[in-house]
């Protein structure tokens, strides 16, 4: 196997708590890899630390500790050590698409200029060459080159998200990080954008780290899935294995909570599988972070923190799995 495109090793990130003296431990020792051309979905509920992890990976926020290595064509780039221009140039190889395509496009910049901006910023193309590449990118995301002269407010949500994707693809990155990139789209448009991403992955051999709370998206697009809870990965595995036989009680609860679009099957299920709320990230428990909500928890779970370990081809952080 070739080297992973992205390697995250023992990443920690904390913030000072708002208005108080405590510390929010948002990411607590996450390690994961994304292989070349691989789509990894990072799933978890609000507050689990998935967006903090994304910020740390992008170096929008410096992690407290840990390594983030991006495999660029001319060798590995240790993002956690880079600063200034070196970091800026490294970003060419890892691009990002955000949730809200309206907020992430400059309303005064035409679509063509928005897509050309990264080409200029990384010194990749100017003038006629840039226009040619913008036209090709807009075709590639299914918009057609004619939209280049339009402005974001003239586009629908689905079209704007395609512009965001074209912009991310412009510098020919090796990996794209998608932070809830289809969550704001309606069902019919979401399917279109997911199909576009599947096509791009096939045509460009593009790796993706797909951050989402939506398990339907995971089903559609992921090769592997990492489940995050209270700042830690609790289960990492291949999509079908993880969805078919989840090992961690939290993964199971999460899957059980998703309503099935089939009343006949839904009738036999109870939706409520999980009571209570996660503990505060300011006072993370000593043992397993999920123990206070876990239907299986034993004494040991409250005193001893489980570590990710392999169980039948999946990695699980649970004493009882």
């Amino acid at each position, binding site marked *: 196997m070739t080297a992973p495109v992205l390697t995250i090793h023992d990443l920690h990130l904390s913030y000072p708590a708002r208005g108080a003296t405590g510390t929010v431990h948002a990411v607590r020792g996450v390690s994961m890899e994304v292989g070349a051309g691989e789509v990894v979905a990072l799933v978890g*509920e*609000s*507050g689990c630390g998935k967006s903090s992890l994304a910020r740390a990976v992008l170096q929008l926020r410096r992690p407290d500790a840990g390594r983030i290595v991006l495999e660029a064509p001319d060798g590995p780039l240790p993002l956690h050590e880079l600063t200034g221009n070196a970091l800026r140039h490294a970003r060419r190889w890892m691009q990002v698409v955000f949730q809200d395509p309206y907020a992430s496009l400059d309303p005064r910049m035409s679509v063509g200029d928005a897509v050309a901006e990264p080409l200029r910023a990384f010194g990749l193309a100017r003038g006629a060459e840039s226009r040619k590449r913008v036209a090709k990118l807009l075709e590639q995301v299914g918009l057609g080159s004619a939209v280049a002269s339009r402005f974001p407010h003239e586009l*629908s*949500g*689905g*079209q704007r998200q395609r512009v965001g994707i074209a912009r991310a693809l412009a510098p020919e990155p090796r990996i794209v990080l998608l932070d809830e990139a289809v969550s704001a789209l*309606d*069902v*019919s*448009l*979401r*399917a*279109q954008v*997911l*199909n576009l991403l*599947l*096509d791009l992955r096939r045509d460009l051999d593009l790796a993706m780290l797909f951050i989402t*709370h939506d*398990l*339907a*998206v995971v*089903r*559609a697009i992921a090769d592997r899935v990492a489940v995050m809870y209270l700042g830690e990965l609790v289960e990492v595995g291949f*999509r*079908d294995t993880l*969805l*078919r036989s989840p090992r961690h009680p939290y993964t199971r*609860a*999460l899957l*059980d*909570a*998703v*309503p*099935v*679009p*089939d*009343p*006949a099957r*839904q009738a036999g299920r109870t*939706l*409520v*599988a*999980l*009571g*209570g*709320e996660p503990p505060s990230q300011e006072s993370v428990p000593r043992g397993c972070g999920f123990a206070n909500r876990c239907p299986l928890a034993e004494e040991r779970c409250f005193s001893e923190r489980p570590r990710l370990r392999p169980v039948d081809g999946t990695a699980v952080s649970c004493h009882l799995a």
Partner: protein
Amino acid sequence: MTALLTIEDLHVRFAAPDGAVHAVRGVDLEVRPSETVALVGESGSGKSATALAFMGLLPRSAEVTANALRLGDEDLLRDGGRRTRRLRGGRMAMVFQDPLTSLNPHLTVGDQILEAVKLHTDLSGGAARARVVALLDEVGVPQPARRALAWPHQLSGGLRQRALIAMALAGDPALLIADEPTTALDVTVQAQILDLFQRLCADRGTALLLITHDLGVVAAAAHHVAVMYAGRVVERAGVSELFSDTRHPYTRGLLASIPGDLGSRDRLPQIAGAPPDPLDLPSGCPFRPRCPEEVDRCAEEEPPLDGPAACWVKGEAS
């Protein structure tokens, strides 16, 4: 049983710079006590405008006309909205998608519910406060007496949504309209809220109009379903018929575009194109430009909802 919510031939028009947007074009809807009806559709389909028109919550600039808008036997059209204002928050209440913007950040959660209790019941003083705690308890807020003293920002999204539901229940509503109540919530919290709605329908006999775009939520929570597209109901069915005997090509497209359980890395079936511009609806059936089943008649005449679906090809009852 007679319907609690009755809407007949509702039309809503908004003034826009380039002409009037006809957002709701002749909607009929009924919800009975103890029943949950899901109103399904994508952004701009007119589902929220339908609910807001019924609740009298649209801006004055919106033009609302209907043959009938009734809550039980109260005619909401008759006295220029006075009756609607009197009933709103009492016999009929609404819960919105975003629980943070619906709460006043300067008042504790308990005080906000207390306002509703005082407005819609005869309770005051200690009895009213006790009622607030009882309502929070009923909607499953742990430590309700303590949580009543909390500020909105101190609560999680799930607890804030419960607080809003508690507020909606203060006047003991016979009808609850919930507009995307779980869309902003995590799935485990969504499951808790849907369970709460089911208990309300079963225990209190509440009639629930549940507005959602999520067909999983529909399958889990609704008894009947109305699917909206471009301002009209295009399909109406009991929940199991909707999924087992889907008629309208739009509904079938929606169902197909949900990623399946497991397996292939194939492309998802998708509905081509995008919903029509409300200022420039196509002739005939508004779904026609995206429809795989189009026949000549579809361009000539908009199909009525006479059977299960408003469709010239698939609309006949079987």
